[in-house]
């Protein structure tokens, strides 16, 4: 009997594999900025979803376009209505993989450089992207950070000639997420 309890416990542990493998948050921060001499436009979303499987390196992000806040209400309306068309394409998404998983030890405190590759979907357009970022492990919490650049024209976001000097050709994006273990 005891032997079987042991087998059971071992199998169960294997299932959850010591360190909580899946990490997630619903409070991921996604910030973007468009800098031109004419105008600075910034959008911030503090309720992105991020799930990371530490065992396989699989990582997914999802953010609601309508949830981006702007300093100017009119910018927010134009962002949704004219550029990202959030009623047709409500979310932006990244589905990918940490490609240098062997260099990251999720059970040891430290700051690791991470590389990720996968598919980024914005405005209904899916593209392959490769980004670099940081994984910070401290006292059991895992923080994921990355900076990258997105070109509106790559995602079929058309900018009328009237405002082409007001919107940058390259939009800087900063994403960060403090992840918690996912209990399933």
């Amino acid at each position, binding site marked *: *009997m005891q032997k*079987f*309890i042991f*087998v*059971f416990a071992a*199998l*169960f542990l*294997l*299932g*959850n594999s010591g360190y909580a493998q*899946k990490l*997630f948050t*619903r409070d991921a921060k996604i910030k973007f900025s468009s800098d031109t001499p004419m105008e600075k436009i*910034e959008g*911030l979303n*503090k309720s992105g*979803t991020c*799930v*990371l*499987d530490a065992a*396989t390196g*699989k*990582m*997914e992000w*999802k953010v*609601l376009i*309508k949830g981006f*806040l*702007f*300093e*100017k*209400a*009119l910018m927010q*309306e*134009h962002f*949704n*209505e*004219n550029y990202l068309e959030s*009623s*047709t394409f*409500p979310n932006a*998404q990244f589905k990918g993989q940490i490609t240098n998983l062997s260099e990251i030890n999720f059970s040891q405190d430290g700051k690791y450089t991470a590389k990720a590759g996968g598919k980024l979907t914005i405005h209904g357009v899916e593209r392959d992207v490769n980004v670099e970022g940081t994984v910070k492990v401290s006292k059991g919490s895992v923080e994921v950070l990355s900076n990258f650049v997105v070109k509106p024209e790559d995602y079929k976001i058309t900018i*009328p000639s*009237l*405002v082409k000097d*007001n919107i940058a050709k390259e939009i800087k994006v900063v994403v960060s997420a403090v992840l918690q273990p*996912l209990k*399933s």
Partner: protein
Amino acid sequence: MKRHFLLLFALLLCSQWLVAQEEDLLSMLGEEKTTDYATASFKTNRIINGHSIENTAAGVLDFKISHRFGPVRQGVYDMFGLDAATIRIGFDYGITDRLMIGVGRNGNEKIIDGFAKYRILRQSTGKRNMPISLSYLIDGQIKTLKFSDAERDNKFTSRLYYTHQLLLARKFSKGLSLQLMPTLVHRNLVPTRDENNDVLAIGIGGRTKLTKRVALNVEYYYVPEGQISTTYANSLSIGFDIETGGHVFQLHFTNTNAMSYKGFITETPEDWFFKNDEGRMLSGIRFGFNVSRVFTVKKPKGLE
């Protein structure tokens, strides 16, 4: 037997985990239900003459300059009515995302108007389902034009007009929004005893998007007969909203020269097409425009 059962159970747990591995990571979290509010049913907070369901956002000041011109039929001599311009200059301000206020000064009859508009219901889907948006508007107007008969015992209250309006709107799709506006206009002083002090009217308005930045608006106010003098018409306006970044230009054709509620509901001078006393067909169409420019006075919270 019991042992076998345990082992089976353990394997089952294990296999479940293996299956879970294959799944989409995000779907493991389950869908978090959020409320999706309908936004931008109209481009600005006015359809043409009257209000739309939209509110000025909290902390935003909306400066509006509007013109209505004389009848287009007057031809080149009056530059198709442009020489007979009336103007309204106004400021709207969003106190919260639900409550906005505004003041304006109209050249026509030297009317000063002030209003408050409150969003009662917001159309939404998702966690909270609401098929329509509903707002209430109260608007007061003071006519500061000199009294026609200075000898008469003129009271200040005779200058006052009030409007109560419910705005019921639904954004049917990305490109189509419709609105119904049951309205009550109260006039403290009316020209003759035959006219009602309280005038009930029903407005209907709509918007359809032509391109991302250009929309077609229609607004009609129907006043059931017997309330106002038969010399007045119902106001019908058709216009385009053109958005250019910071400004919204509303260019329209209308048959009213007034931008105050009591003006365009109870005193619209002519129909779009009518026969004059001699039986000649004439048109009461006038050109007009509203220009709106917004300024962010108070930055929204939650940006850091």
